[in-house]
């Protein structure tokens, strides 16, 4: 494996960051999604994930276009609207040895894709599911989505009179085992969260507030850069040390919630809210519901569970990818066939 001498220009597996880049973005200049694509590149580079062992899955919408803008060396599947969870599930069943990154939007997830979203969370399928959340439909020019906050205003002056769906609270309740919210403008937090997500075994749901500069970045929007800069209230500060780096102890243990990750990485969540325990499911949901009631925008890692078996564990499948098992394994013998025939006579 990694015998390459570390140098500033290559990562843990000896690749330069250029090997993680994608095509040129066609999204609007300043779109939050572009920043998220950059953080994905950084995270995979810093974690030393082999780009040829990544699957990028997406649905339809501005967010779902972004897999073209990072990791050109990875296979990508841009499917149909709201159905990324299904294609991702199938692809993971066919090859559970790869790292799977799903990118979706708030419309793609919380409206048309809600049925599939909840079931993916419930299965705890090993993948990172990123919602690039701007509260509006961009490609159809600015209709509210289901994550738009109650009372937020469109440019046209239309006020949203329905409550927002909190995808993080839902995901926690349904069975996702790593749930966090970040802001595309918070480089450090988002990068740490993505890196920790890559180390997690199970479904990682990251709702990333990602302002739409064209349709939802004005006064009265709760998904604008300005609003987020003023109201972002991190519940914890994320420190992540990958398994291949040495852990330096530089904190007071009472202030930090420490999690040993599946791959040996170390996740340290410095408590910013008094006694917030990210392993307490009911408390996590309650905290999010209270924040929504109070109009607060919490970010950080809300919930983590490193014990829960994944769907792949439950299926108890062989270690090799199912998709490339040879015929000698997948076609039963003539002897088995003859026995079946005999039973039918």
């Amino acid at each position, binding site marked *: 494996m990694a015998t390459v001498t570390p140098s500033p220009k290559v990562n843990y597996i000896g690749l330069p960051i250029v*090997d993680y880049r994608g095509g040129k973005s066609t999204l609007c200049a300043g779109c939050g999604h572009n920043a998220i694509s950059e953080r994905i590149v950084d995270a995979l580079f810093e974690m030393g994930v082999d780009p*040829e*062992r990544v*699957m990028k*899955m997406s649905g339809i919408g501005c967010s779902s276009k972004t*897999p*073209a803008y990072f990791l*050109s*060396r*990875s*296979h*990508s*599947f*841009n*499917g*149909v609207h709201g*159905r990324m*969870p*299904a*294609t*991702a*599930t*199938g*692809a*993971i*069943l*066919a*090859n559970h*040895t*790869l790292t799977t990154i799903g990118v979706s939007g708030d419309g793609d997830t919380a409206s048309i894709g809600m*049925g*599939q979203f*909840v*079931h993916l969370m419930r299965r705890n399928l090993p993948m990172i599911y990123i919602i690039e959340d701007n509260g509006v439909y961009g490609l159809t020019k600015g209709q509210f989505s289901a994550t738009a906050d109650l009372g937020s205003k469109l440019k046209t002056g239309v006020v949203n009179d329905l409550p927002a769906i909190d995808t993080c609270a839902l995901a926690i309740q349904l069975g996702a085992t790593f749930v966090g919210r970040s802001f595309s403008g918070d480089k450090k937090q988002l990068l740490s969260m993505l890196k920790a997500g890559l180390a997690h075994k199970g479904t990682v749901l990251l709702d990333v507030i990602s302002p739409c500069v064209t349709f939802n970045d004005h006064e009265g929007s709760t998904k604008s850069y300005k609003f987020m800069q003023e109201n972002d209230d991190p519940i914890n500060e994320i420190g992540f040390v990958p398994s291949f780096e040495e852990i330096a102890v530089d904190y007071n243990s009472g202030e930090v919630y420490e999690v040993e990750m599946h791959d040996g990485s170390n996740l340290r969540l410095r408590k910013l809210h008094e006694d917030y325990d990210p392993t307490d499911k009911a408390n996590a949901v309650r905290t999010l519901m209270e924040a929504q009631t109070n109009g607060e925008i919490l970010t950080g890692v809300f919930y983590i569970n490193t014990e829960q078996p994944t769907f792949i564990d439950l*299926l*108890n*499948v*062989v*270690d090799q*990818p*199912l*998709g*490339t*098992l040879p*015929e000698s*394994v*997948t*076609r*039963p013998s*003539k002897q*088995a*066939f*003859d026995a*079946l*025939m005999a039973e*039918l*006579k």
Partner: protein
Amino acid sequence: MATVDPALSEKQGEFVTRARVINDFSINVATVNGSGSQSANSVLLKSIFGMGVPVSGKNLFPSNIAGQPTWFLIRASKHGYVARKRDSEILVAMNPETASADVQSLPPGGVVIYEESLNLAQARDDVSFYPVPFDKITATICPIVKLRKLVRNMVYVGVVAQLLAIELDVVESSLRQQFSKKQKVFDMNLGAVKAGFDYAQANITKLDPFFIERMNLTAGRIIIEGNDACAMGAVFAGVTVIAWYPITPSTSVIEATAALLKKLRVTPEGKATFAVIQAEDELAAIGMVLGAGWAGARSMTATSGPGMSLMSEFCGLGYYAEIPGVIINVQRTGPATGMPTRTQQADLLSAAFLSHGDTKHPILLPGSVKECFELTMAAFDLAERMQTPVFVLSDTDMGMNHWMSDPFDYPEKPLDRGKVLSAADVERLDGFARYRDVDGDAIGWRTLPGTKHPKAAYFTRGSGHNDAAKYTENPDEYQAVMDRLARKFENARNWVPAPVVVKDGTSKIGFLAYGTTDCALRESFDQIKQRYGKDADYLRLRAYPFAQAVHDFVASHERVYVVEQNRDAQLASLLKLDLPASQVTKLRSILHYNGLPVDAESITEQFANQEGL
């Protein structure tokens, strides 16, 4: 047909001179669903099979869990006819709700075996009535009250066996097969059969002419339901990922597949070489199938009409992005919810063009349980070869009824995994263009996620793309891909299973049909010959797109009857789109679409009408 031989009874003069009817009649068992009659009917059917007599079963059941009327038709036919027979001569009336109407449906000379308290004997004077105190007999042999409902059905098996002269040993061995692993259940049921048999022997004077006599026409043959045969096909095609949503009448395809996989595809270490996932709906099921197919798995789903409608959008993606997957549609009676437990062949057109835009899909059409096995296997090869979703269209009659068959053959041909480039191939070629037709067959080469080469990846999308899988809105690039897809579909005429020329003599009249229509049509040919002295040729279709042989068959006949089980002549419509204009006017339709499996008489009558016979 019946051999001339005096019937047994001398008590009632009218029956004395009636000929014996041997191995050529149908039994209608009328019960209430959820009463466990399925096992009893299965034992009865397999007993006739065990007597060496060709037999078929048709379960006409309601869309309901328990308490509604259900009928099971068992046909014994020395001629080997296995289609539904329009009339049943023998009625086992176990359902008080329908008993009167069931009695009225019998042809003159028929037989009624019934629970004596129903007092049916006054209903008609041209049929024989055999009252049996089922409740009393059951109470004597089954002390456990809650089991009586189930055991009661085995009593009629004994009664029918005695009346038809089916050997008790044969019934016992069918029973043993049915309850192979449950000795206690076997004992109790055998007791019930014997009690019915003994009662009939001691108390019923046989007045009817119907008998089962030993033949030697079933030796070496098997009995299987179409859905179980599809399941075997999937397993021996090496399926690895199955995603599905339960829907009648396809559910048992997946249940049977899963059972076989658990039996045959677990490693010595106890690890599964397959994944079965019950999806949240059919949209998800087909999405998972395509996700898995994209990542290299042999993936499939099974569904029926409403589920297939939900799969529409994804099937368009599968077609355009060129992703393999197998969809087994066990057709039921539409439109909408329709009659979920009844049969039809009415999803052909929607399967052929499922999804918006210029989309078309290959469809395989099994005409027997053996072909359910073979064509399901073929569907996996074709899907991976063509890199596209492939449909297998079965139906309720095929899928959920018992059919005799020659044993299936173990596949000799290795799996065709299609055009997949390895990392070494990509290295040798120094990259590749995913959708470029480099071989002239209109099929590009693909790579699988995880292929260890910097140039192995490509971007799969349902949006406009060029032959290098790059996004495009360029008119020429878009159209080039669409034209190649059309060529690929055209080429598939030669890749799909060829049609079967069943009869090609010198007749000016041709017939085209597929699937379960085949068995009724074959019987109809004999009726047409006997009644009108006419011969007709017959080509059985096994796939869409149609092979050149289908065009040739139409071209070589003056008029061609297309027989199918739907209202709108869907197969004929599809043929009309495909045939040259000069041939289209030759097509005539014979249709059956009331939810019952088509019978020979219906075909013969419509043919005679249209021919003016």
